[in-house]
């Protein structure tokens, strides 16, 4: 049987008219939202930029990628009409992509409705009459967004120290010039111009709002995600000697990442086998495991399954797993999350003891004020105007109050947080102030 497909020209004409109507509407919407209007007519780019207007960038990325495939397949089917079987086969992914695109467009329109402070029923309008709705929203004056898209290209970051600090003999020297990533085809600065020297025996609080780059900083510090940086632990270069140095740095993640159906003793034993040197004798290794069980109060539960432990015990086990190598640099990401005040305090006292043994202990916590007396120093990271993580302060806890003019760590955090996060939005001010102080110090 000879099957011929004649896709009518009118259906392509309809598609083209709809495309132009939506683009004209987007032109107006983009202008209102502060997005370059040229993108409204460019396929794929317009899908991404409408998501920015809707404050739905995450969904917009998926929407954009789906659009790319959709457009490619649509064009391919146009040229494959004379091959009926292939044409029909192509319709299957097109249908799948179309459904996904509709779902994501609805998500984005919900975001747009929120940004324009309109009732949700407007989404139905977009669903059935997308072109008309886009034109109405784009050109009727009463439709105004409550939030504009930030143009970070125009923003200027706070001034920098711009030079590396000299290396200290005993302690951690951090000189992070910048840490960048390519995020959805765009270069993004995550951290910039972070320089400090932390002496041994110090317990340091790492403070910063959401997205200020705390985890990125720690990952750069430990060499886990390398930055354009120079990280020296004593006289050892963490990046150059990463294979060796990673065993000298303990990192305790926020979640208790252990197998719940293994026993405490075996969990520690496996951690010891993985982390301790091969040359260590069985006796020494067993002694080390026993001392960890003892030091972290786990002796009584050593034969229990990890799942049966309390929150505090589990956290102590997680710390013991890292501390088993007796690292010089010990980093903990919110070790007190999920713990009550008394248990959390006990845990921090234990960390203080570790620091007093001559280690550097760096801790992220969201409730610093209840244990601030145990810390020596504080590192304050903040997002500057370009949304890059910057160093707003590093120094003693006591001097930090004076520097920020506040009386608690929570107040300091509020002062550096952006205004749209409920903060005072003074990050750039403190970043520059600290850079000036540092310039004076290092000459």
């Amino acid at each position, binding site marked *: 049987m000879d099957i011929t497909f004649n896709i009518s020209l009118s259906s392509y004409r309809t598609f083209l008219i709809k495309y132009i109507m939506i683009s004209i509407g987007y032109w107006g919407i983009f202008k209102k939202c502060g997005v370059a209007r040229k993108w409204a007519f460019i396929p794929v780019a317009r899908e991404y930029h409408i998501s920015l207007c809707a404050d739905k960038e995450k969904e917009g990325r998926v929407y954009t990628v789906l659009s790319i495939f959709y457009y490619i397949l649509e064009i391919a089917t146009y040229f494959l009409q004379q091959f009926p*079987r292939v044409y029909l086969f192509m319709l299957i992914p097109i249908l799948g992509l179309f459904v996904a695109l509709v779902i994501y467009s609805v998500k984005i329109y919900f975001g747009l409705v929120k940004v324009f402070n309109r009732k949700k029923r407007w989404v139905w309008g977009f669903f059935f009459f997308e072109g008309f709705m886009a034109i109405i929203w784009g050109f009727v004056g009463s439709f105004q967004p409550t939030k504009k898209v930030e143009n970070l290209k125009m923003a200027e970051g706070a001034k920098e120290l711009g030079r590396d600090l000299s290396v200290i003999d005993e302690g951690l020297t951090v000189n992070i010039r910048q840490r960048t990533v390519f995020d959805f085809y765009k270069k993004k600065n995550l951290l910039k111009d972070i320089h400090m020297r932390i002496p041994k025996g110090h317990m340091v609080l790492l403070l910063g709002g959401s997205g200020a780059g705390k*985890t990125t900083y720690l990952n750069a510090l430990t060499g*886990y*995600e390398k930055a354009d940086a120079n990280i020296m632990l004593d006289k050892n270069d963490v990046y150059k000697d990463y294979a*060796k140095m*990673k*065993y*000298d740095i303990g*990192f305790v*993640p*926020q*979640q208790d*990442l*252990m*197998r719940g*159906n*293994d*026993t405490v003793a*075996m969990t520690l034993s*496996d*951690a010891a*086998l*993985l*982390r*301790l*040197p*091969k*040359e*260590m004798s069985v006796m020494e290794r067993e002694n*080390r495991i026993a001392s960890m069980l003892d030091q972290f109060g786990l002796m009584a539960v050593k034969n229990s*399954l990890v799942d049966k432990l309390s929150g505090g015990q589990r956290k102590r086990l997680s710390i013991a797993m*890292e501390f088993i*190598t*007796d*690292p*010089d640099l010990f980093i903990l990401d919110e070790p007190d999350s999920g713990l009550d005040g008394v248990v959390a305090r006990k845990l921090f006292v234990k960390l203080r003891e570790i620091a007093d043994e001559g280690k550097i202990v760096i801790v992220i916590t969201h409730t610093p004020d209840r244990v601030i007396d145990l810390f020596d120093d504080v590192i304050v990271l903040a997002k500057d105007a370009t949304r890059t993580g910057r160093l707003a302060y590093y120094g003693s806890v006591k001097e930090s109050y004076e520097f920020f003019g506040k009386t608690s760590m929570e107040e300091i955090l509020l002062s550096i947080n952006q205004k749209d996060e409920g903060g005072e939005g003074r990050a750039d001010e403190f970043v520059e102030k600290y850079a000036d102080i540092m310039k004076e110090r290092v000459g």
Partner: protein
Amino acid sequence: MTVMEAYEVKHRGRIAQTFIYLGKLFRLFLFQSDWKVLPMSAVIAGLVAFAVGGNLYKTMEGTLMGTFALSCICVWNGFFNSIQMICRERAIVKREHRAGLHITAYVASHMIYQAILCALQVIITIVVCTIMGVTLPQKSLVTPWPLVDLGITLFFITYCADMLALLVSAFARTTTTAMTIMPFLLIVQLLFSGAFFSLPKEAMPLSNLTTTKWGLTALCAQGDYNSLPMVSVWNNALKLKNVEIDGGKPLLMMFQYIEENDMREDILMFSAQQNQKPEYDFSIDIVIRCWLWLFMWTCVYIIVTVILLEFIDRDKR
């Protein structure tokens, strides 16, 4: 002086780490109820033997259906063994990778552990089939023992599916995602086996991608498919015995003649001869070729799994 400084820093390599993780996996086998896959495989084998075991290796149709069912239970077992293995502890693996774990050692430990699990499941399946009175191949091709030949094929099918599921587990970030992908893969394995369901000519090359195609082919070859009688033509013709033509029943007379002269078996064999498939010949080359295909796919899945896991550090929090 720290613990680390006291020694020339050398840590356990890939082989030692493989055994550390192997120990861990066997502990989890006991404590995390992973052992349940063994009785489950016995139950599945029992059900399949009950449903389609009657004509397996007795007729062409029964053999095709039975070997397809056997391939399917092997794929099912393999999938269930490891579909959640990595994704359920992905964050833990990431932490351990940071602490010095070699991904190759981690995957190798899974390979060994799963191989043992698959071997046990194959033994269970064969024992259950034997107990249920299912006919199994009587002649051997590769080893001197037909059951060992059969066991190796079943093992290759199960293990290949197992490694595919391990790949999915390494790819998926969550157990929910893995369990969503699994039925889709299972359907592909069933539909594109290339034997049980008729595929368009253009789709036939796709069947080379499936574990079931190579498993089923090897199982049919081992059971000497082409020497078996074909009953479907006879059975369908028999349904027409009462058709009247000019007041008589010529087909009924013909069937009576065949039965009276004891020609039924000859007819069945003649019917089979017209439907023989060279790809199911009782040949060592065919069986070895199928094993090699299964082995190759297993290797591909393992390599991809390792590559995927090497990027585990890029996982977002």
